[in-house]
């Protein structure tokens, strides 16, 4: 069964917005709903979209300065006292700079800190490889107790933020810098731990996360013209992975392509390959970053260069199916 999304996915005038903006709205709402919600930031309050919360709740906003190790560890202390702390920086620095503190003081210590890694993926664009965090999914996915989220657009990010505020586990959510198309609606469901079939098909399952789900949706019409009936599964929760939904789809189509704006090693591609390798081995192609760093450019140039556009997915699907 599919869930409702926008009608015309390939509309030229499709609305777009940075995913981080949805986080900002969700955080402010979460703050209105629960006085225990607090937010801390490492000198990136505007660009990680904590500013609205900070303005609305100045007494619950904490400026840490450029100190990501302290950021997440202060978060652990806040959670210990019953707060629901959202801590944000760029994903390259958090979790990039402070993985051990996250491991020991949040995961092993089992404190429900809400980590926001902004400017993740190639959509970080002109800032270049240092800031295009591509390893966050892998880094966070290996940690026991950690929940890992990569919403597909700003509308979903807002729902995910509200869900995080209610979740009692440590959470990590990656969000992006540049505007990306909005394909979910107010009616599209979101639950932590659930994958969603956005398009039903018989021939191949394209499993995508984050911004890449939009690219996957664009392939539906393109592949149809080639006589290929694609099923698109959106995976906004990388961990815990919704194995039931994914296995059910793959048992039907018996062919899989995964797409992510992150390293496939340990990322979504890694997670799906592990799941299928153990439970239902079928031909699979993983699209994403192949043991490579990014570089400066527009998101469009970078997606094109690294082979992560809808056209590239179509080609990959065709190659996979041609092999039988």
């Amino acid at each position, binding site marked *: 069964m599919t869930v409702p999304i926008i009608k015309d996915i390939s509309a030229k005038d499709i609305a777009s917005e940075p995913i981080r903006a949805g986080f900002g709205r969700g955080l402010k709402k979460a703050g209105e709903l629960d006085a225990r919600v607090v937010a801390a930031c490492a000198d990136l309050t505007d660009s990680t979209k904590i500013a609205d919360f900070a303005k609305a709740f100045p007494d619950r906003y904490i400026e840490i300065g450029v*100190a990501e190790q302290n950021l997440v560890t202060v978060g652990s202390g806040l959670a210990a006292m019953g707060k629901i702390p959202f801590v944000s920086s760029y994903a390259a620095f958090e979790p990039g700079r402070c993985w051990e503190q996250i491991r020991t003081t949040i995961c092993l210590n089992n404190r429900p800190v809400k980590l926001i890694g902004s400017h993740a993926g190639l959509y970080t664009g002109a800032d270049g490889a240092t800031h295009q965090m591509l390893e966050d999914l892998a880094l966070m996915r290996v940690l026991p107790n950690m929940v890992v989220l990569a919403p597909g657009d700003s509308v979903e990010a807002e729902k995910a933020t509200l869900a995080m505020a209610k979740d009692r586990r440590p959470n990590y959510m990656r969000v992006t810098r540049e505007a990306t198309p909005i394909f979910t609606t107010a009616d599209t469901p979101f639950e932590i731990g659930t994958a969603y079939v956005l398009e039903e098909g018989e021939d191949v399952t394209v499993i995508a996360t984050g911004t890449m789900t939009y690219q996957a949706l664009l392939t539906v019409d393109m592949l149809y013209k080639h006589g290929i009936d694609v099923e698109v599964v959106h995976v906004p929760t990388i961990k815990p992975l919704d194995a039931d939904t994914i296995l059910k789809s793959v048992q039907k189509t018996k062919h899989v392509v995964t797409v992510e704006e992150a390293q496939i090693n340990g990322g979504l591609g890694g997670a799906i390959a592990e799941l299928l390798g153990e439970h239902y081995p079928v031909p699979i192609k993983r699209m994403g970053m192949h043991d490579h760093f990014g570089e400066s450019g527009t998101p469009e140039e970078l997606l094109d260069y690294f082979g992560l556009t809808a056209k590239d997915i179509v080609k990959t699907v065709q190659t996979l199916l041609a092999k039988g």
Partner: protein
Amino acid sequence: MTFTPQKLSTKALELKANQIREDVIRMLVEAGSGHSAGPLDLADIFTALYFDVLKHDPKNPNWDERDVLILSNGHCVPVQYATMAEAGYFDKKELLTLRKFGSRLQGHPERERLPGLETTSGPLGSGLSQASGMALSMRMDKEKERRIYVIMGDGEQDEGNVWEAAMFASKYKLSNITAITDRNNIQIDGPTEQVMPLEDLKAKWEAFGWHVLEIDGNNIEMCIDACAMAKAIIEKPTMIIAHTVPGMGVDFMEYDFHWHGVAPKPEEAKKALAELRSLGGKIRSEAD
């Protein structure tokens, strides 16, 4: 609900500290691995905290009015386990399960395994940050009666995270934090001043905006007085630099950095216990 521990005389506290040292030696020799020097030199500070300074209830570890004690240098946890058992958190028999499979007394402290532990530590440098988050949360909630105590090693102050926290606690004027540095001058690779010089440590903390007290960390009365003094400082957080003798109480361990990260062998433990029982011939400790 309130809980008022009975105040003990200095002499009684000293005997407790000695008993804790004996327990530490027994635990370490039974475990066959672990750290000796730090837990021994911290026995007086832990005695002062658990038997005088801290507001806590061993029978109700989650008491919501309790003070919070964070052990940032988690490798010294044997002294905390021994002190907790002495205070009645759990039966002393359990001390001999240290570092063994299935034990609540993990090699490094794990909060979720043992009631009374406030956090999980071992990797160094993150205790003061957690304390700062806790202290700030208490400030937000207008909880004025509770305090956060943090025990830190001196070697761990090589970690950058410590100084990030130092700036943060100072910025937010977290005067509800009392930090105590175990200044025993050793770390695993050698004397601190050879491995990575820390001095002028007092000047460093002062420059970071802290009130600094220096004490003899093996003098229980001084530990208690300094903690009381720290409470009176409301302008800034307080760092107590507690000068201690590494391996305190066991002659062949004292001042020798080689004992930082190793446990005594059975013969060495026997010697150490004999020495501790007579407190270097000065007093008799309580019977086992």
